[in-house]
């Protein structure tokens, strides 16, 4: 157990250190969610005037939840990029040789993803509050929203790390991020699901991100909905993707 913790701690430290000292990595991961918040909450605020749009805290809060969860997911995705980069540079192979418990590597990258998102999530939240976001949920409900973000970050990190370990090249970047991007945008991003029509409504109904987004919005508004479904869905996804990441690690071990 000690060896696992030591490996995880070392990999997490390196991951967060690399992020903090490298502006080319840090700045985009902070700037992008902020731009999404500005573009969606600022540019599309008129959408809240569509008939039957009802979200008492307002459109900034409605969009904040999406951007908050999106930043969590992309915190995980960016960590997958770092793994791929480590394989391209040869560092990951040296890490595989030297780590006494290799499963600690996955845990380390996942913790690194969480720490990275802690920074981004804080910046996005402060920006939304400065922009006048209303928060109607109580303390416990807000902790629930943060919990959803943490779980989303873990799920995305396990996906990204696993795939990066399978493919072991930076060229996998598009393949890592595209499914996450598409899943996020196939959820009810701009309006509640009841206002979606056509194929997007059917797809959003089946999309596992939809209950997570609805639960997050409900928690921020102080009227929770689908919270249990969201957490159970994320827990199942995390379990499946942890096995996927473990297999990715095994594939990397076999490849030497």
């Amino acid at each position, binding site marked *: 157990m000690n060896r696992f913790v030591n490996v995880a701690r070392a990999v997490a430290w390196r991951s967060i250190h690399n992020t903090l000292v490298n502006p080319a990595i840090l700045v*985009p991961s902070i700037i992008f969610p902020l731009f999404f918040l500005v*573009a969606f909450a*600022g540019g*599309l605020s008129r959408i809240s005037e569509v008939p039957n749009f009802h979200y008492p805290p307002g459109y900034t809060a409605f969009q904040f939840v999406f951007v908050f969860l999106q930043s969590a997911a992309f915190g995980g995705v960016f960590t997958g990029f770092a793994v791929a980069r480590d394989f391209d540079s040869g560092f990951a192979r040296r890490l595989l040789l030297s780590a006494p418990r290799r499963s600690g590597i996955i845990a380390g990258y996942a913790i690194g993803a969480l720490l990275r998102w802690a920074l981004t999530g804080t910046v996005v939240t402060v920006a939304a509050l400065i922009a006048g976001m209303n928060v109607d949920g109580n303390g416990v409900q807000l902790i629930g929203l943060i919990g959803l973000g943490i779980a989303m970050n873990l799920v995305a990190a396990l996906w990204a790390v696993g795939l990066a370990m399978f493919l072991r090249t930076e060229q996998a970047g598009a393949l890592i991020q595209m499914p996450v991007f598409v899943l996020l945008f196939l959820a009810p991003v701009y309006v509640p699901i009841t206002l979606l029509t056509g194929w997007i409504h059917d797809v959003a109904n089946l999309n596992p991100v939809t209950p997570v987004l609805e639960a997050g919005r409900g928690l921020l508004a102080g009227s929770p909905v689908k919270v249990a479904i969201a957490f159970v869905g994320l827990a199942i996804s995390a379990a499946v993707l942890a096995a996927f990441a473990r297999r990715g690690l095994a594939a990397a071990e076999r490849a030497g």
Partner: protein
Amino acid sequence: MAADLAVTRAALPGPHPTSLVEQTLAVARRAVLRTTRQRALIIFPMIFPLILFAINGSALSSATLIPGFPTHNYRDFLIAMPFIQGAMFVSITAGVDLAKDIESGFLNRLAMTPVRGEALLVGQLGGALVLGVIQAIVYLLVGLATGVTLRSGIPGALVLLALSVVIAFAFASLGVLLALRFGTGEAVQGVFPLLFVTLFLSSSSLPRNLIKTTWFRDVATYNPVSYLLEGLRSLVITGWDGQALALAFGFALAILVIALGLSQSAMKSRLTRT
């Protein structure tokens, strides 16, 4: 290609064996071949705007219920966006290709040949031009297939294609400028998000008069990308709007001229350094 040009020079008499046009065509031929051989460069930048068009075209369709929205079909409004996004991807392709030539030393070797800087500059944009044309045709066909109707008819479709190619060429010249200034593909790609920001801070999702947040509306008003979008959009929604088209062509040509002018001096400086 440097060798080809050197051989051509040796084979022909006189101090200037190939004209500027011939030199430009030779460089352009290489740029076109390089672009068309990298299918990933064509497919991903083309697909991504279409994915966003498909998703946002449906997800934001209720925006048409806002009083004063100019059309009942949100796709009619949104179809301009893939053209601009595609043009932005073209800028990266053009910039990264030239940056690769700089990093690999190919540009240095070309500097030893009689190829003129102007030929290098305009020729490098050949690949971007081809990419711009392919993308514009695909976006128009996809738009029509998904129910977009052009109020300006077939002549409008031709003007739409022409405008989108000019816009792609303008953005490509920006990419070339970045490559000449920074000299690395990584730096060109690093600037790409800034281009996307200009798209988000424009009238890409709602008409400017329906943007509620004052500062956002002001930024969109001063943002040239809004006018590029509105020019393309006018052909779909309004029909023939001379002012919107003049502004769109004007801004696209202004970007093109400014970027090419700055690129030319950057190219001179880079060739002098070598």
